[in-house]
């Protein structure tokens, strides 16, 4: 084209794109440089300590729930670890429970039973439209109010106790020789997996179906049982007992944990229920008709035909709800559950005053959790999408 030649080189589309991008990049870098510079200057002017050396300093405070060994003499680095584990614990338990409730309510919404469908609908519309923080407070104070004091605890067989300080369970304590039991269990699981692979190959080759379930159960239960008997039952349980003001010994589930899990899982379930409903409604009508023509009951139809197909549509929103639950667990800070935000971005930040470092670490932790989960789910999604015929 003759016109193209008349445009000077710096005004061609390509050059303009390059220049624009260079300018943009430069702008962003300048902005970041300016922020870093300002922060450094403010820190220096006000003589605020900086750097990551504080992670090796003694924290000096106690944490009410720690999954790894922790006491007042531990370091801030240890606090970070305790916080991350507590966050992961609440997220994991929350995800398991919310999935169960979410699927139940989601399927319930499509129930032929008018009352069930209506109630599930009310559940979704109520919980989805009230702030989670409010629900957490509600659960917390409702739990505290409903439970008795330690001296009036509700007990079960004198081994399990429930009061407003928590749920006390017998705590397992490994004795010498417990390693053998664990090893036997691991070996059993490995053998079951190999068996399952073999059984599948046999089935695909010959059409013969092996009783895999029963065999796997035997493989998983028997070896540890035998190992345990040989080693003299090396797992003892410490039974909680009232000593002084409170129960001592055993395993305790804090009321803060119960309230947080209850609030997170019921709230998130209202979103999962909607995703499940949309997924099921998205399955082609012909599929259900074909299934009922085959004489499957409604339950069988859901389990064998509809839900497996709906899963493809359900998994992406499900993933993002799992991530939301994990991120929302940061609201623990409001009811004193010692999660990452509470003990690290909370107490530690306050004792050390190093806001930039601590918030950056906290954000990095959540970002890592989010990005790895999304990466895994994308991979998984791609995998199940490929099996489509």
């Amino acid at each position, binding site marked *: 084209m003759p016109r193209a030649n008349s445009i000077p080189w710096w005004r061609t589309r390509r050059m303009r794109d390059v220049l624009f991008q260079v300018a943009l990049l430069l702008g962003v870098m300048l902005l970041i440089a300016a922020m870093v510079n300002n922060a450094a200057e403010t820190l220096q002017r006000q003589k605020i300590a900086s750097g990551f050396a504080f992670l090796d300093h003694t924290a000096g405070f106690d944490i009410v729930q720690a999954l790894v060994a922790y006491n007042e003499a531990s370091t801030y680095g240890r606090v970070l670890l305790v916080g991350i584990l507590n966050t992961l614990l609440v997220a994991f338990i929350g995800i398991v429970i919310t999935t169960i409730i979410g699927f139940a309510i989601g399927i319930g919404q499509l129930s032929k039973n008018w009352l069930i469908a209506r109630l599930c609908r009310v559940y979704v519309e109520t919980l989805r439209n009230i702030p989670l923080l409010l629900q957490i407070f509600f659960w917390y*104070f409702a739990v505290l109010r409903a439970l008795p004091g330690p001296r009036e605890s509700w007990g079960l067989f004198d081994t399990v106790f429930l009061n407003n300080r928590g749920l006390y369970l017998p705590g397992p304590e490994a004795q010498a020789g417990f390693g053998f039991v664990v090893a036997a269990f691991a070996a059993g699981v490995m053998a079951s997996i190999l068996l399952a692979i073999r059984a599948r190959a046999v089935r695909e080759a010959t059409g013969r179906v092996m009783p895999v379930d029963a065999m796997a159960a035997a493989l998983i239960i028997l070896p540890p049982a035998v190992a345990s008997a040989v080693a003299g039952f090396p797992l003892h349980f410490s039974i909680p007992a009232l000593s002084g003001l409170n129960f001592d010994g055993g395993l305790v589930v804090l009321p803060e944990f119960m309230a947080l899990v209850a609030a997170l899982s019921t709230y998130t379930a209202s979103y999962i229920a909607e995703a499940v409903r949309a997924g099921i409604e998205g399955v082609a009508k012909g599929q259900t008709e074909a299934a009922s023509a085959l004489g499957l009951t409604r339950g069988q139809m859901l389990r064998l035909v509809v839900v497996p197909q709906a899963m493809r549509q359900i998994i992406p929103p499900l993933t993002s709800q799992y991530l939301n639950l994990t991120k929302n667990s940061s609201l623990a800070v409001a009811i*004193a559950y010692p999660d990452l935000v509470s003990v690290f971005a909370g107490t530690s930040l306050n004792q050390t005053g190093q806001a930039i470092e601590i918030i950056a670490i906290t954000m990095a932790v959540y970002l890592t959790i989010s990005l790895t989960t999304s990466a895994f789910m994308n991979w998984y999604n791609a995998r199940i999408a490929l099996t489509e015929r």
Partner: protein
Amino acid sequence: MRLLVSAALLFLGLAAVPAMAANSPTLEKVKKNGYLRCGVSEGLPGFGQPDNKGVWTGLDVDFCRAIASAIFNDPMKVRFTPTSAKVRFTALQAGEFDLLSRNTTWTISRDVQLGLEFIGVIYYDGQGFLVPKKLNVTSAKQLNGANVCTNTGTTTELNLADYFRANNLKYKVIAFEKNNEVIAAYDAGRCDAYTTDASGLYAERLKLRVPGDHIILPEIISKEPLGPAVNQGDPQWADLVRWTLFALLNAEELGVNSKNVDQMLKSPNPETRRLLGVEGAFGEPMGLTKDWVVRIVKRVGNYGEIFERNVGQGSPLKIKRGQNALWKNGGLQYAPPVR
């Protein structure tokens, strides 16, 4: 790349300019704004709390009003920012307010590492325990195995750990973000004891459903010198705040109060005359007027008046002067002279 470097250098140069200033930059800013910005507690009866009409009152609040009176001759030219225990230092560092006056304990790590400057002690306090009467506990030593509620990010959390460890007692700490949440959880029976500064216990007890059902244990397990703090890097401003506190104490020591301050101007006592600016001009080097103490005492009163009005006999808290009496009366409050 060279462009980037030169642009970055240019920016560094620009950013460096406003860092220099001759007089107290904080005072300049306060004067320009026309009001003092003060970080206070989120609602602690007697120390800092808004009343029904939203007007802030309390010991810590009146200290801010004293400074505003010295600068503007108007105790109302203060803006109060309620801050939680957790965020108070970062908020001060971030420049959200000019002065933190919020029952804050003076400790070495806070003074040295946080970039803060503590300017004195406005209230000598110590950490105690509040327990329900029905627990039948009369000493903190009987709290073995207790669940203890407290605020996160305070010295109380650390003292608690020290005390229970030193006495070989077991405990569990439930640390909340806000005062209101601690007291609500304690009232709901979550904890066997609530620990914070004794002054705070008296104040928070008023918020319980039945305050009479709870007692404060006799043990005081720590030293908690509570005082105002400012940012480091502006020594003139720290001087102004520090000498406002000393002025309040000196006024009480010399018997100058809000009712007699005008007559006291004629006092023959040279100390009183220097304090009130009749002789000498001690306010001026700080960027204030000669009669700065007259302004303070006339608008807000002396230390004794502030104490009695907010936490002492004139208040529901009815706290005795105790350690907070003047040194002449056997207390710890002692101010350097104006000379």
